[in-house]
């Protein structure tokens, strides 16, 4: 069963080929057998999943089941799930049982999908390798000595290994697209505001966005249709209606105008990655698209701007972890200040502390204008680069990451880790959508093609990605791990 895409599984459930209970048990068994090696899950909610699968089967028998009813999924451990541990990859929240559901979770439950558990991630979504998790690093199923990417590394590794057909991730600077690229799956970051952030543990609130990670663009289209939409509980979620993301998938691409940002093919780009991306662009030409070079002149300012804005927002968001109302509290605090400072020092990991300190420093008196206001001005220039480019072309294409997955432990210096996100981070600053699709391999490790569109162009991105997946089969390739260990 695990060889099937989510779309195929939905059809099989509908036709009665197997029940949701059988399907759920199948994936639970695979997780139990293989995840000791991958470490992609923080919590597995087997009992609850089987109960929900039975409810979905009953709804199917009664004729009231929706198209995705009974489909097993996993949630990055950043989505609050009622009565289930929601750790955000942190010791700070190791004891946190969420008292409510994120809107994304409510919507998935209403659609009848079955959550099998919560996936591993970089602590508070801060990282590009999944090595910053309190629960230990996740391994890449294509090569157990490689990282799966981050911060949604557990979601990406679990989907790639066939431990789950799809998973939810979040993307603040590339955290869906980069792990999707490293693990050879499809991952979509929607437009900022397209999906409600309510109940998603906040990292950088003007950048955070949730999206689906699955085998194919078609799978992502089904899932985005479920999770997108306005939510009164997130004041930044948009009121614009949700289109049918599936009906547009088969639109022909003749006349599609593709722009290749010259800044995305410069120094530091691995030659194998460049080759795979250029081959993919040729496939598009054969489908009738035209290609031209474009420029995003402020690309090199995106990482510096991000590392002011994201830590500034994080330092504010993470001030809520005070050891008083929920989360970790240190032993025997001598007074209130000791309780605050020691609970936070003992509960947060190194990278989280770095970002809290950077954010606090850049927001503090004497530095605010030079850093924060400056970065926000640069942010406008970066967004304008994209808006200008989309005057001339329909979509932009390039690599999702400058290299394939790197080795575990290879990047010890924080700045060298940050530079990994050069092609993904500007997208969050601009608020536009982006998708990463499998486009080949380099020494056995997957390469991702990133496709970007203007604000609210998700239907077009999914169409463009789906047409590539009709012409190629990179997205259907499986690591040997999927057969050997699971």
């Amino acid at each position, binding site marked *: 069963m695990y060889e099937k895409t989510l779309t195929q599984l939905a059809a099989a459930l509908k036709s009665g080929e197997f029940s949701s209970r059988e399907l759920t048990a199948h994936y639970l068994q695979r997780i139990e057998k293989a995840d000791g090696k991958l470490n992609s899950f923080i919590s597995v909610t087997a009992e609850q999943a089987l109960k929900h699968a039975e409810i979905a089967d009953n709804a199917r028998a009664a004729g009231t089941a929706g198209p995705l009813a009974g489909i097993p999924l996993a949630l990055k451990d950043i989505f609050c799930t009622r009565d289930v541990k929601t750790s955000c990859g942190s010791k700070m929240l190791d*004891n*946190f*049982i969420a*008292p409510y559901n994120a809107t994304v979770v409510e919507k998935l439950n209403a659609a009848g999908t079955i959550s099998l558990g919560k996936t591993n991630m970089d602590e508070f979504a801060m990282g590009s390798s999944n090595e910053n998790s309190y629960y230990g690093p996740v391994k890449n199923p294509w090569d157990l000595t490689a990282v799966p990417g981050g911060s949604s590394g557990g979601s990406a590794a679990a989907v790639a290994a066939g431990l789950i057909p799809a998973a939810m991730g979040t993307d603040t600077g590339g955290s869906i697209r980069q792990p999707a690229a490293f693990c050879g799956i499809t991952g979509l970051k929607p437009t900022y*505001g397209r999906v409600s952030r309510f109940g998603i543990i906040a990292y950088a609130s*003007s950048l955070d966005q949730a999206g689906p990670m699955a085998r194919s663009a078609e799978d992502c289209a089904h899932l985005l249709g479920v999770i997108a939409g306005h939510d*009164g509980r997130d*004041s*930044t979620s948009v009121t614009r209606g949700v289109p049918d993301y599936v009906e547009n998938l088969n639109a022909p691409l003749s006349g599609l105008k593709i722009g290749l940002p010259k800044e995305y093919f410069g120094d530091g780009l691995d030659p194998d990655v460049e080759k795979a991306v250029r081959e993919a662009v040729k496939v598009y030409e054969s489908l009738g698209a035209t290609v031209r070079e474009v420029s995003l002149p*402020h690309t*090199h*300012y995106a*990482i*510096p701007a991000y*590392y*002011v804005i994201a830590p500034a927002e994080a330092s504010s968001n993470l*001030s809520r972890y005070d*050891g*008083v*109302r*929920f*989360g970790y*509290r240190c032993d025997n*605090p*001598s*007074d*209130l*200040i*000791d*309780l*605050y400072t*020691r609970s*936070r*020092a003992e509960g*947060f990991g190194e990278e989280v*502390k*770095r970002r*809290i*300190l*950077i954010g*606090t*420093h*850049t927001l*503090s008196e004497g530095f605010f204008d030079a*850093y924060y*206001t*400056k970065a926000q*001005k*640069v*942010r*406008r*220039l970066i*967004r304008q680069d994209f808006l200008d480019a989309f005057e001339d072309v329909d979509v932009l294409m390039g690599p999702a990451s400058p290299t394939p997955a790197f080795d575990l432990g290879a990047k010890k*210096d*924080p*700045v060298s880790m940050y530079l990994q996100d050069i092609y993904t981070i500007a997208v969050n600053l*601009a*608020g*536009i959508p982006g998708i990463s699709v499998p486009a080949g391999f380099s020494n056995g490790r997957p390469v991702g093609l990133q496709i970007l569109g203007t*604000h609210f162009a998700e239907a077009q991105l999914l169409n463009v990605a789906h047409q590539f997946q009709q012409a190629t089969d990179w997205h259907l390739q499986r690591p040997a791990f999927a057969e050997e260990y699971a």
Partner: protein
Amino acid sequence: MALEESHVRRAAHLARLAVSDDQASGFVEDLSRILDMVDQLQSLDTEGVKPLAHPLDATQRLRADEVTESNQRDTFQRCAPAVENGLYLVPRVVE
């Protein structure tokens, strides 16, 4: 803009984060490297550019001033480290 240990100490104090002497020097080193990278921003002319706080330039929506939430104090206090009679317990603040 060079980062001094006093800056790290001040940020740690403002962020209510305990930082030992050993850790402070490590943070000075890491944060200096990050700020060196960030300082590339200073080379860009942004005269006359308006700061962008929100990618869609949206403004805060208002809703009707109606009670929409019910009292769930007991539920929410179930995940607190220490509570008594509906109150959160902390070390004594006033002698």
